[in-house]
């Protein structure tokens, strides 16, 4: 057990950081929406799922089925990312309009909103299950996976570095956006005190819509990276990842953008270390146990709730 852990320490670390970066990107979507609406956007996992299918669709459409290099690779990655972002962002906006806005306007209970989100999630999953089949689909390899160098047992590979770097850059960009732009100020104001924000002239509907859009775009990026790294997708690919991303958001402190990425990375590390100790079949159990333990002992997460000032 402990032998496995020490032997696989570096490879677990690198895999954990890579998985964690993807969790973190999806977690930012949960955190933003939760910060503003105090609602777990249960259908966010399907926003991600649609992104992976869109990335696959873009590759099929342009007939790209072999690894590229140089400028062509950059072009292909950009294409995948943009298409996935557009699809995920569009889905998120549509979700807000169809599943949440009517409830919000009526002042419905949060339970009702959560149930509506669960319904929307099933609906989207099944649409893709029926349309694309229930089997795993493979996404063609677009970049050669070169090992740059080794740290102990761990291989530092170009696709893993890409995933981690992209996630960190995106987190920095989002953090800057929320902290410096006008819309970002609107988001923070709404998160702190919606009533006062309205009185100060913040257009709540626009804030909520852009929150969903931003979350969707981040999920789209995560989906494209997922496609590059794991090279597969399935109609229910978002389910487990969604729960883990939510765990990451809680772990980092829900409502906290930097916390979402840190939570994602920490969760990725913990579950991979756990898997190396107990065996890979326990990976998901480790992740869920982390969720339960965090909520028990530190429900405000590592960095604490931030975007909202811990409204009770």
């Amino acid at each position: 057990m402990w032998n496995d852990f020490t032997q696989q320490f570096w490879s677990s670390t690198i895999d954990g950081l890579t998985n964690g970066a993807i969790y973190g990107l999806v977690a930012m979507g949960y955190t933003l929406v939760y910060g503003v609406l105090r609602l777990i956007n249960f259908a966010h996992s399907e926003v991600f799922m649609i992104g992976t299918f869109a990335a696959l669709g873009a590759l099929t459409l342009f007939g790209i089925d072999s690894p590229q290099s140089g400028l062509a690779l950059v072009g292909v990655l950009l294409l995948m990312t943009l298409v996935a972002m557009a699809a995920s962002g569009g889905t998120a906006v549509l979700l807000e309009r169809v599943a949440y806005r009517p409830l919000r306007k009526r002042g419905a209970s949060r339970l009702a909103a959560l149930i509506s989100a669960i319904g929307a999630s099933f609906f989207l999953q099944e649409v893709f299950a029926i349309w694309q089949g229930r089997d795993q689909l493979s996404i063609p390899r677009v970049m050669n996976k070169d090992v740059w160098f080794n740290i102990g047992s761990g291989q530092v590979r170009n696709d893993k570095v890409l995933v981690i770097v992209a996630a960190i850059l995106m987190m920095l960009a989002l953090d800057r956006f929320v902290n410096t732009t006008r819309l970002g100020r609107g988001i923070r104001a709404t998160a702190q005190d919606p009533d006062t924000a309205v009185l100060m002239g913040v257009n709540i509907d626009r804030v909520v819509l852009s929150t969903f859009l931003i979350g969707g775009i981040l999920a789209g990026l995560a989906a494209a990276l997922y496609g590059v790294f794991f090279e597969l997708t399935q109609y229910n690919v978002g389910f487990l990842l969604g729960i883990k991303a939510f765990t990451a958001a809680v772990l980092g402190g829900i409502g906290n953008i930097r916390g979402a990425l840190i939570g994602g990375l920490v969760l990725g590390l913990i579950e991979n270390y756990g898997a190396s100790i107990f065996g890979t079949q326990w990976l998901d159990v480790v992740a869920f146990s982390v969720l339960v333990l965090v909520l028990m002992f530190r429900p405000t997460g590592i960095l604490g709730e931030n975007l909202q000032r811990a409204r009770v």
Partner: protein
Amino acid sequence: MSTLTGLRRRFPDFMGITGSWWDRTPWFGRWTVYLLLIIGAFLLPSETIGSFMTPESDWASVLFYPIGIYVLLAIGLNVVVGQAGLLDLGYVAFFAIGAYALAVFATKRGWSFWEIVPLGIIIAAAAGAILGAPTLRLRGDYLAIVTLGFGEIIRITANNLNYTGGPRGISPIPHPPSQPDVEVGGIKILRYGVLDARPYYYLLLVAIILVIIIVKRLERSRVGRSWSAIREDEDAAELMGVPTFKFKIVSFVMGASIGGLAGVIFAAQTTSITPVNFPFILSALILCAVVLGGSGNLLGVILGAFLIAWLPERFRGFEEYRVMVFGAALVIMMIVRPEGLLPSRQRRAELAEGTGGMGSLGGEVGAVAGQRIEVDEELVSGHPPEVLAGRDEREAGA
């Protein structure tokens, strides 16, 4: 907005009408109806009804699983979701625990079915308490995710442990001991074999009736009143001296025991269980049953479970689209008729006020929407004051 409200108004309020009629019915009238319902339930597995309900498969088997099991699970989940207002997304875990309790103790210890029934209930109840103790202090929507995680933990654990047979599960699980000589109306109701599903259906029916009686009694007791207080406004309930945490645990334990009972009975009939029998989607379908039927109202919940179990069996082409249709139905229901098909009247009033357990969504975002308290005219006019007063007296006497 106005079109939506209009749409909601246009649905006739059956419960309002039948409900007040029911309140005026004397006790012997009620008992006659109960008796007729029970007799009806006993005659239900007949071939004539079956040829219409499920022409393609054995009606008695379908009546046992999925219909009967779904109904029992929905009644159990209704205690948690409908009465106490706690969203449990991992309810299937307790069902699995009950089923595995029977499988493990019957095959490895040689215990008989009737010994394992109470044991399975106790194990499931203990699991409910263990899960509830740390998580029930959380905010409502966190609870939903934690229970979801718990459901997955149980399934993955059953899948990984050798003791529970891993992915191959456990089989053969012995049937309950038979009494082949007992005959009622030409049916050997205590012969638990492989072919005839009717004895199992009757066993399940007795369980359902007992559970309904217990749940109904609880609903009208101090416990039930505390649950509705917690559901409506947890902070206010706490201030009024309701030990909310304790009663939330009680509701979790009640729900868990009913789920465990369903699991034990289910495993006794199917003879073989694998982790695949307990997917997340089952938790979700039962939740759909509760919400679509009308959470908080037993009749509605039973109707919801029946529809969700029966429709895919009757219309075979529908099976493929089942989850999609029910998913869309959930969204539409929450927009158009959040109280469900046959709503509980109390719950409906709460939903109209925009509260209901976890606080309101619009009240926090959009001051404009939050300030409006919708008064449902039908609801107010549907119940003359004297009816409500009479009901209160009866409840006080009970």
